[in-house]
């Protein structure tokens, strides 16, 4: 009986901590969203108040949508994120499969080399990357961003996925070989479905930094036609005057697509994170 009470108390305490953390984490998002629905005066008068009948104002959203190109910015962000994600997962999984499945000279070194990128921030190479993009005429294209983000995401993807792929039964792959499946079929049809939780984990950790990135769009693709949503929102932030309504509205809108993508991956994600911990 005391055992049961004890565990109730423990789970209450655990939940209190979790709720506290959730509140702290969500608070900035909450403030951004409520203020995006208020007029300028109300934002400054009482930033923490929820919109009332008299302070409610959609002027921010109107400005953002009237700016016209925001649909394009969204589209750019989505194209860059989804394309990079696709390539990171595809190439990362393929490299991981080769590293975990085939015995060849320098396998270990290759694995270390591919994982090295986790420790070295890609932004250190910005100047060289820019020179390369200029030389290849890719400045102000979405391709430039997709290439950079693919390179940025691969090390972690290879590292996590090769660990998971080592766990896929050798017998299963060998059974496929004896039944006449090609290595590609074994990879796509047998191995990939089994590491799906790990793929979702990698997808989420890859996707969010790409969606939020301001650095590379600003440097590699700042043209009107290739602006991403984070860069596009910057037009409302001036040196002297900032259109807070529009900034907050743009940021609120920018949360939505990434939230949708997260929800798609999250069920798999939870399995991926707990896979090692819970047998």
């Amino acid at each position: 009986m005391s055992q049961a009470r004890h565990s109730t108390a423990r789970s209450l305490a655990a939940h209190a901590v979790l709720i506290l953390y959730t509140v702290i984490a969500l608070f900035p998002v909450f403030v951004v969203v409520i203020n995006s629905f208020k007029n300028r005066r109300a934002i400054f008068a009482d930033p923490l108040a929820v919109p009332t009948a008299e302070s409610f104002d959609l002027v921010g959203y109107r400005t953002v949508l009237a700016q016209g190109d925001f649909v394009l910015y969204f589209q750019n962000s989505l194209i860059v994120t989804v394309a990079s994600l696709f390539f990171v997962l595809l190439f990362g999984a393929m490299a991981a499969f080769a590293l975990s499945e085939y015995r060849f000279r320098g396998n270990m070194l290759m694995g270390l080399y591919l994982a090295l990128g986790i420790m070295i921030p890609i932004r250190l190479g910005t100047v060289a990357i820019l020179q390369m993009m200029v030389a290849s005429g890719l400045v102000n294209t979405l391709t430039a961003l997709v290439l950079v983000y693919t390179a940025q995401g691969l090390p972690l993807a290879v590292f996590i996925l090769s660990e998971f792929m080592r766990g896929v039964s050798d017998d299963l792959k060998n059974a496929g070989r004896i039944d006449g499946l090609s290595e590609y079929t074994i990879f796509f049809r047998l191995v990939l479905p089994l590491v799906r939780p790990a793929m979702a984990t990698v997808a989420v950790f890859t996707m969010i930094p790409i969606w939020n990135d301001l650095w590379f769009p600003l440097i590699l693709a700042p043209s009107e036609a290739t602006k991403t949503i984070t860069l596009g929102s910057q037009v409302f932030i001036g040196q002297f005057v900032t259109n807070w309504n529009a900034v907050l509205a743009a940021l609120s809108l920018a949360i939505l697509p990434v939230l949708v993508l997260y929800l798609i991956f999250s069920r798999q994600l939870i399995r991926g994170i707990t896979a090692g911990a819970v047998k």
Partner: protein
Amino acid sequence: MGALTLNQVTKSFGTTQVIKGVDLNVEDGEFCVFVGPSGCGKSTLLRMIAGLEDVTSGDVTIDGARVNDLAPARREIAMVFQSYALYPHLTVRDNMGLALKQAGTPRAQILQATEKAAEMLALAHLLERRPAELSGGQRQRVAIGRAIVRRPKLFLFDEPLSNLDAALRVQTRIEIARLHRELGATMIYVTHDQVEAMTLADKIVVLRGGVVEQVGRPMDLYNDPDNTFVAGFIGSPQMNFLDAGKLGLRSDRLGIRPEHLVPGGGQISGRVSHVEKLGGETLVYLSSDDHGLLTVRLFGEQDYAVDEVVGLGFEPNRAFHFDAEGRRLR
């Protein structure tokens, strides 16, 4: 159709040689069992026959054709794995039919082959299920079915019963023996369990450290082992090895099976250290000053007390003589 020949086959991983020149002939329709302790190279040898491991040197020949450089799928073999290795996303029917589908067999023919195999293995009612919905024994039957459907020249089994519980193991063992009789196919079977080897095999290959120690029919190995390793590995409980010098014999060691030591003789004496009563038989363990631990197998229920001193005798023509290197002296 289905004779296998290995000619001076070796396998090295880096600088370590794990298979050290194996010669072997398996006749068409024979049931051949590779047996040995873990790490003896029996699974590696099987995987080399399957084409899952490269052969470092030597020839693997199936039906007179050298297959060293053929992909596994083109060697006309089928393999059953210890972990079943069923495709998790396919139904039982598709699992069994996949190899034929890959080979471009007409759909009607695949259907017929899977139905027939399912009937042989009493799987007909499970055809639409996925592997996750089956018990361990059912999964292994599906894996065996998947092998049958292909009508291979060679069946390869890699410790297929190791993941099953004791009762199921006996049942599946009988089933495999029945399949071998019905199909008349050549089967190569790897196990570390000498009971499986004895009960299934036409021919047993005993391996140790990548070397073939002895090849022969089960009873030949049992009654006529070439060396102490084979003598000790085949037969359960293990053969007793006695110090021949202490018995006034010229050989180095004397091997006597537990059932051939009889209480009441005066040649050896030992103190009972443990008694195991199994109903049908009684195993008495004795510690002897001259010969170490000895096992005696007696028929029926027998009463012995721990610490009781027992004299033992044996018929000289039931004993095997070995030299200092463990080789049999005949």
